[in-house]
């Protein structure tokens, strides 16, 4: 039974999603593998693995360690680089009738700017700026924990692109709302909360760190309560939309994030365990809407009852 509900989200001027469910960056590669197992056109949006100006080989193994209800990754942002992406991957992704959001990062300001410049071409629906990756030595997370640094960086990127610009924050910020506000102030069109949380695992038998990189980023259901709180805090401070991310694993979780103030969501770790979760969760949403007599999902955003 097709339920006649409206799941579209007008996220940003010029960026409309057919539903609020996207993948998170880094758990979907460039879409090819998943396209073999389900129709990517169902996605609210597709977000690419984080790209840097040049190809990046990432960190030594092991890069993954499981933790209670979650995992730590220390991939180290291995990626093919902006140019290879534009040449080899974008065309493929454009066949699916859904917005392609390109996630990118830099080790220094000029790299961010140059990435944004090169990525501002047709076929790219929006840019997601990662200022919060705990997995690289220089760059990354320190941009995402100081509001002034963040403002300056987003400003520079804003100057070179007219694409919708999403800034993806780190939960490490003492005050996530302040960071969100800085990003908005500097011209960001939306905020993503959150990236992984810096974390560590040790093998008490060998006395060695479990990850090749010593530390990495925690994700999965374990961090969901933290992510939900950041969405709540950030969405009360800014006027631009907030995209929720962190530990989402069901349509119930999607609704919770939207009630807290998220306009859309990204699912990362859970889709590593459940590659078929996207169709399931998107269907679950329409069912939920039917059960609760919700006509347009947009009406759920920020409607937490206090």
């Amino acid at each position, binding site marked *: 039974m097709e339920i006649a509900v409206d799941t579209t989200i007008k996220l940003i001027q010029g960026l409309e999603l057919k539903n609020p469910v996207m993948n998170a960056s880094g758990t979907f590669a460039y879409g090819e593998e998943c396209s073999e*197992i389900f129709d990517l056109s169902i996605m609210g949006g597709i977000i690419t693995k984080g790209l840097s100006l040049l190809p990046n080989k*990432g960190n030594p*193994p092991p*890069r993954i360690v*499981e933790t209670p209800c979650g995992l730590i990754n220390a*991939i180290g942002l*291995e990626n093919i680089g902006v140019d290879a992406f534009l040449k080899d991957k974008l065309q493929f992704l454009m066949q699916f009738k859904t917005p392609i959001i390109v996630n990118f990062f830099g080790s220094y300001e000029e790299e961010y700017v140059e990435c944004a410049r090169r990525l501002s071409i047709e076929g790219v629906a929006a840019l997601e700026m990662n200022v919060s990756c705990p997995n690289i030595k220089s760059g990354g997370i320190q941009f995402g924990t100081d509001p002034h640094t963040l403002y300056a960086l987003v400003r520079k990127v804003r100057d070179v692109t007219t694409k919708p610009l999403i800034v993806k924050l780190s939960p490490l910020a003492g005050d996530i709302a302040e960071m969100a506000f800085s990003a908005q102030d500097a011209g960001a069109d939306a905020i993503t909360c959150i990236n992984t949380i810096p974390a560590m695992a040790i093998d008490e038998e060998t006395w060695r760190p479990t990850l090749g990189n010593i530390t990495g980023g925690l994700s*999965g259901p374990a961090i969901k309560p933290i992510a939900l709180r950041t969405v709540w805090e950030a969405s009360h401070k800014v006027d631009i939309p907030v995209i929720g991310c962190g530990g989402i694993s069901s349509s119930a979780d999607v609704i919770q994030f939207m009630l807290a103030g998220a306009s859309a969501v990204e699912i990362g770790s859970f889709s590593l365990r459940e590659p*078929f979760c996207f169709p399931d969760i998107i269907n679950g949403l329409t069912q939920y809407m039917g059960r609760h007599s919700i006509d347009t999902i947009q009406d759920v955003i920020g409607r937490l009852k206090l």
Partner: protein
Amino acid sequence: MKDLECSVIKNQKVANNTYLLALRCDGHIGEYMPGQFVMIKISSNTHPFLRRPFGILGYSDGLLYVLYKVKGQGTYMLSNKHPGDKLWVLGPLGKGFSLPECNEEPFYVAGGTGLPPIFSLAQHLKKGHIMIGAKSLDDLALVEQIRNIPNTKASFTTEDGSFGFKGLVTDVLKKCVSRGRGHVLTFDILEHDIQLNQMTEKECQMLRHDPLIIYACGPYDMLRQTYIIAKRCRARCQVSLEEHMACGFGVCQGCTVETRSGNMRVCKDGPIFDAADIIWR
């Protein structure tokens, strides 16, 4: 690649800490190549969070066989599953072994938990010489089933000498491929290693002249050692690598290894690699 709900049919201890798991799949897993693997979801709730990778020991008529060793929490929980319990299986995953070309004679080397893909391949090819290593007799699983693979020879090695040759499986391999190995072999043979005993010097020498392909799965050091031996006798060598995995189907870059052609994902580009392509640590 499918995600199938499976019922445990059998989950039986077959060696020290080692279990043979038979699963009835609700649906057809599809064609598989020896060397491919599956990701098993052990719990329907989110702890343990990740699926666990296991080689396919065999698959026919909707029955999937896995041989696993209890290592940590996931495999421990797996060992507590009873017939009728549900598990979820993603697969088949990865690339299988490339098959022998022309008249390449297959040698198989398995150590520790490396048996499943090797067993599956030998069963498929039905020829060649299978060399199995373990710490001790108690750790050896499926000895009879290995011996019963038609048209193959099987040698067993234990580190403590409790069964077969005493030493490392790569010692046996070394002897088998070395000049005059027929001679050395008869000298070293232990009474109860019947198959190897039956190998005449002539047969052994033939191997040396025939082109060889060596398949190996097991601990990293064993694989590296195998590759060194293979290189010395100019044999092709294919190894099955292990790396911690999050997804198992190529999207997370969690299982990357360095090769001569750049970073490769063990789960998608492997787990089988040409040993010559790997940048060995």
